[in-house]
């Protein structure tokens, strides 16, 4: 029991130090402890958690991109130029990528 109490006090002290708040605000800070609580209670694989954030289309820079890696390789065989492939998370023709 004493161990549990000590652990709780230490945890509260750590939270207080982390948030720089008075003890009176700690309960609210604990409830709002941000990403950890959210992820702990959220199953990212569940269909209900999926939503699409608006991501407007943009011009993918000034490079003249081929439509796919295979197209670029086919073009390279004709031009003799090496292939440059950019891998990325998201899409280069969207604002957030």
């Amino acid at each position, binding site marked *: 029991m004493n161990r549990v109490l000590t652990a709780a006090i230490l945890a509260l002290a750590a939270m207080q130090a982390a948030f720089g708040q008075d003890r009176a605000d700690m309960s609210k800070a604990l409830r709002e402890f941000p990403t950890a609580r959210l992820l702990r209670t959220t199953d990212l694989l569940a269909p209900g958690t999926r939503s699409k954030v608006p991501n407007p289309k943009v011009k993918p820079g000034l*490079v003249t991109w081929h439509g796919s890696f295979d197209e670029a*390789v086919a073009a390279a065989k004709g031009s003799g130029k090496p*292939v*440059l492939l950019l891998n*990325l998370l998201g899409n280069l023709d969207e604002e957030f990528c």
Partner: protein
Amino acid sequence: MFSDKEIASYINANFEPAWQSVRPVPIITVDMGNGNVVRKTFRGNIGTYVCTTDGDVFDILPGLYSPAQYLQQLHQLHDQVVALPAGEQRLSKLIAYHLRRRGIAPTEPDPSANLVDAMDGMLEANRTERHNDALDLDTAVNQTARRELIHEKLATAGLTTPDSVKHWLYKNVLHADIDDPYLGTRELFVGNN
């Protein structure tokens, strides 16, 4: 980066370029409740593969670079890949290229240790030089610890395609496991429980 005129012109003139998404990018949205919304990508990263005309990987630039360094690296890699012989000699020259550049490889490379050491060194150098540009720091890490991992990998992988190494690249070099729905961040936020 690809809106930079000099970089775009060089790529258009010297490469056959394509881009490919490896997975959707996480986007963090903070609704401030007063009509203001802050939106930002999270853990997004890129890999630039320079490939032969057959589509075999010659070398990879991991992550983001400063525009000047990116252009310089593209120049170097272009000149080296076009000098690569065709036929039976290609594989041995490719392996020799990566072996030369990886330096003295540790017997049991520890990617995270390499990265942490490099980051410590770079951060110290940064403090000393009062050089606080995060992109330059990222460039420096990409050019040291991360490139070394790539040279080690490609020295043993031989002729390979981007698709064959992209999962390894994102998980082990860029620290964003694209096969993980949490993108490798679950432990960062919630620990092991």
